[in-house]
């Protein structure tokens, strides 16, 4: 059972990693976009999937990361990849400031407030609030990233850059899931009264989940800015947040494999059916309704965590 899963994962990774050899530039670029969304959706998965907070403003953190990178690169010529940690940090700080007063809000209220946030951020960017965001046109002329002196510019090069970060993300978030921290988020999602009664500081964990999710979205922002070389407020609208929200719910809350599958379905699949582009929303809507009725836990819900019990002490009476 467990082995079968790993074989599927390994086969998938292999196909994915060799695919640039056979795909044209267009399809490689589609995979790059999917990769960015996988990383973003995984960051939302911490907040929405694991902790159960209905956060529909994730694009705001993505925007903070992308603009941080864009501004500092175009104004001070700091190499884009060096700006990744700072972009994450600023997105995290931003999350810390805005989440603190709203973190205790119940599901639906939180949803409304976070929708408000993402719109405020977008409108602020359009109106060029600090005179540094370039207004509705955004910022252009962002440098391509360089690694060991090699400039990353073709879709094929970006493919490996983006999916490298996706792999690192998966590795770290998997560990995060299988830990005291990851469990605490699940306890809060399942029953916050029982979680508090078991000694878990609910607001603290909710806040940290928010911040980690935001930091990761900030990292994605850097990659996005580097890939596009132009960013504009419209890339971070409410609809982006909805897509991310949908990916997590559809794929399976708290499930890395589910979120990856969800991203391929929601972001990748429509590319195959371009001629039906106008029906996209209709299909999404219908699929979501059907899913919520028949499989509310998502397509690939996470399997229960396993623990190596053989390593724990034997019961006394067995001695």
């Amino acid at each position: 059972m467990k082995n079968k899963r790993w074989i599927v994962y390994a086969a998938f990774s292999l196909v994915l990693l060799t695919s640039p050899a056979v795909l044209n530039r267009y399809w490689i670029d589609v995979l790059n976009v999917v990769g960015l969304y996988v990383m973003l959706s995984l960051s939302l998965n911490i907040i929405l999937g694991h902790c159960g907070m209905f956060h529909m403003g994730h694009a705001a953190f993505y925007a903070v990361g992308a603009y941080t990178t864009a501004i500092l690169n175009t104004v001070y010529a700091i190499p884009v990849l060096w700006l990744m940690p700072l972009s994450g940090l600023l997105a995290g700080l931003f999350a810390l400031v805005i989440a603190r007063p709203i973190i205790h809000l119940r599901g639906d209220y939180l949803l409304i407030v976070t929708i408000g946030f993402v719109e405020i951020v977008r409108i602020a960017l359009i109106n060029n609030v600090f005179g540094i965001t370039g207004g509705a046109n955004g910022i252009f002329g962002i440098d391509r990233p360089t690694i060991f002196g090699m400039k990353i510019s073709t879709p094929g090069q970006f493919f490996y850059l983006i999916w490298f970060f996706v792999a690192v993300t998966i590795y770290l978030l998997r560990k995060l899931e299988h830990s005291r921290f990851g469990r605490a988020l699940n306890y809060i999602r399942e029953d916050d009264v029982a979680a508090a009664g078991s000694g878990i500081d609910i607001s603290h964990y909710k806040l940290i989940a928010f911040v980690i999710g935001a930091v990761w979205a900030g990292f994605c922002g850097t990659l996005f800015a580097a890939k596009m070389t132009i960013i504009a407020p419209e890339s971070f609208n409410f609809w982006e947040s909805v897509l991310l929200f949908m990916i997590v719910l559809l794929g399976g809350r708290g499930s890395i494999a589910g979120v990856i599958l969800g991203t391929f379905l929601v972001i990748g699949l429509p590319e195959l059916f371009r001629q039906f582009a106008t029906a996209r929303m209709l299909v999404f809507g219908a699929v979501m309704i059907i899913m919520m009725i028949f499989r509310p836990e998502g397509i690939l819900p996470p399997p229960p965590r396993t623990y190596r019990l053989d390593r724990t002490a034997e019961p006394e009476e067995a001695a």
Partner: protein
Amino acid sequence: MTLLHLENLTKRFGGLIAVNDVSFDVAEGTIVGLIGPNGAGKTTVFNLITGNYRADSGKIVFDGRLINNLPTHKIVSLGIARTFQTIRLFHKLTALENVLAGCHCRMKSGSVAAMFQPPWQRAEEKKALDKAMGELRFVNLETQAMNLAENLSYGNQRLLEVARALATEPRLIILDEPAGGMNDQETAQLIDTIRQIQARGVTVLLIEHDMSLVMKACEKIVVLENGAKIAEGTPPEIKANRRVIEAYLGTDEE
């Protein structure tokens, strides 16, 4: 020595006085029962102790420390653990993970340690795992470790809540109707378990409608009616108390 001291505790819900000027002590190492008719305010007293509700007036002193205004998780880490009258498990998680929730407050590792898993973090996880398995064994649920909590029988779910509470390493455990929904055999087992909890040095305060359990297990009983304390004493004293008998059998006066 007094472990828990309640003094003139009052809690109102709108016009209803759910807990009315209640005072009593729980001595360390004892098993104390809190009884009373439905709606007497027993669960509300528990919710005040664990910080789920804030008292309108009065004091709650645990181990010499005023805990009235502390958040629930702080109170748990000070050493008070509870179970719920309406079972509140993490239904979609395994029994083992439910107990690991209790271990949480005695652990340290945070998100960064989780991602990079240094040796001390792994040692801590292993220790918690051992502890959680130990508590499952204590309530005879070790074979259920990998089952989802929602798949356990009603009686076992109650025991799982006890295991989770014990995993917080409490000095005082408060049980809200632990025998609720249990059959006679399970209840007899439960009395045994409660005594074993006491033997571990944990003080027990419990709410229970099953009088035979209360009379058998408790050294002291506090009786509430309509939010107010009407009696306090040993089981024989309570059995003989006129006001208690009236409260339970009902009188025509009201």
